[in-house]
């Protein structure tokens, strides 16, 4: 896969961190990591979650199927779902 058109998993993770950095109104007590739980650790509410998904779509120019999110709990779960979509769409 060419690295110019495709985004790596790390790029996706970085974009999610960037999004949270910008949008979380309250700093969580623990530093944010890939293992941070979206609700328990970050206090993300449902509309913020939706907003994050649509933001990631806009950034990576993909449409993320909603059923990829059926068992997503942490930041890395989100990153994996998004990365999978990017790869599928590039194929």
């Amino acid at each position, binding site marked *: 896969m060419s690295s110019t058109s495709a985004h790596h998993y790390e790029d996706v993770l970085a974009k999610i961190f960037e999004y949270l950095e910008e949008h979380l109104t*309250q700093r969580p007590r623990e530093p944010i990591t890939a293992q941070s739980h979206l609700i328990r650790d970050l*206090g993300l509410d*449902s509309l913020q979650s939706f907003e994050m*998904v*649509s933001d990631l779509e806009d950034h990576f120019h993909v449409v993320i199927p909603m*059923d990829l999110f*059926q068992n*997503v709990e942490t930041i890395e779960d989100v990153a994996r779902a998004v990365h999978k979509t990017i790869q599928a769409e590039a194929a």
Partner: protein
Amino acid sequence: MQPPKTLTAALAAAARREAAGFSHLSHERQPASFVSYAAMWRRAQRCAAAMQALGVRPGERVGLILPDSAEFIDNIFGAMLAGAIAVPIYPPMNLGQFDAYLANTTHILRQAGCSAVITDAKVRPILGKLMTSVPGLRTITTHADAIALVPEAAEPAGVVVRPDDIAFLQFTSGSTSRPKGVTLTHANLMANIAAIGGGLNISSESSGVSWLPLYHDMGLIGFVFAPIAYETRGILFISPLLFLKRPAIWLRQLSEFKASITFAPNFAYGLCTTRVKDSELEGVDLSALQVAGCGAEPIQHGTLRAFADRYAAHGLRPSALLPCYGMAEHTLAVTFVGREEELKAERVAAASLAEGHARPASPDAQAVEVVCCGRTFPGHALRIVDAAGQPLPEREVGQIELQGPSVMQGYYHDPERSAEALHGGWLKTGDLGYLSAGELYVCGRVKDLIIVNGRNYYPQDLEWQASQVEGVRRGNVVAFGLQHPDLGREYVVVAAELRAPAEDAAAEETLRQQIQAQILAALSLRVDEIVLLAPGSLPKTSSGKLQRSKTTEMFAEGKLGKSGGPASKLGLLKHLAASRWNFIKASFGGRGE
């Protein structure tokens, strides 16, 4: 020509129109699929024949768990054509976390006494356990397997559908273990549809766009049944999750479809103001929109105003916004504001509201803004009564009661709660409101009212104030009053989820003081106890509606905030779908968040 007296007769009549019908959009990158009324009629006939082949007899209940909107519509009409009673049940949001879902579904299927369930291949595997937990349930099958039992042109045999037959059961939240099945006949539905059509001026030239779930009354009756009865040009259904992910889709489709009618709860109008980017609105033209209805949860004047202001540039006429009040027990709609009327709200003095009077507030007084929901329909009656059931004059706050052909038959197989709701020839709504110049203003729910020293407080007001405090998870606050033997008055509690844990005890104390001060300043009420909780600690129904009575119970038992918290097990999809889904199971017009 006589208008049809049953929904099935209405569909048979609409089936003459091959070019009109419904479109279904479930993926952003795929075109919507179109099903004409004629095709709907043929598909419903086949579903009816399939149900008969499965052994479903007239009067039996059939559970429908079908995420696909077209399949759902085929089967609800199929059930009617087979003389059976459809029981729409919301599909699971998250296939990985289905224990709570199954428990809820079991209660509904038991209460309805379903003998069959029609579902799809994705949901089917998780429903296996139901066969043993629901007595009388003979079969759980997929739609595809069911219709494969009969040829494509199959028709049901020997069923006559009458106006007084039960058309379907609309289950409303209540408590999970005792769901309430609102029983509606074809006559109920045709009466309310006639009222809706008159109020909104629906005709065969109308067209609509809806992302509302079809297992909820506003989506099903408002956008499936009413359009069929009026043989409207077309309706476009957008998947609800698609809307929540990208609200602009709703607006873009309204524009593309040149839709004349749409409806949504208050929060959806808020989302379109805050979350839609200008770049997503290129070319969007809402000038064809005649009715943008708003109901199903408390209506905020500011939210609708802001929507009207932003979308004026896209051709939206402010008078298209049409607040309404309704509830499943009254089929769907109770009141509409008149078409082409401007939005209207009253500033009511908070102090007078606490005493049950709705007095206009002076400019500098604490005030609550209450939106006008309009009048009820010809042939229907609405009144406001006090706690003793005596009618109240205008501007006095009391319970809203209803009478007329749209009132339900009762709750299915629940004589006790049916008798509570239908008393002395009136339907008790459980909602509080007042009349002004003959028009209805809705204030809150009766049973949630907090009464301290003879003054009334609406928990929604306390919750809204607490949500204003930085650090509190907006919309995740529950306020309630408890009878306290020693105080001689209600003990007032506010339970609030925090966005993130407080640094230390001192920070927690500061937050408590801020919440206390906010409520005191706005409502002149001192809260007795403020409970701060981790995200996801407050109990919610499976559809995400905050459960005030359950919260009260947990608090009384000392369990609030003591468990691990349900959030730890939530998958994102369920979470995504959860907290703003209040309106789905809340009866139309009941309280939202």
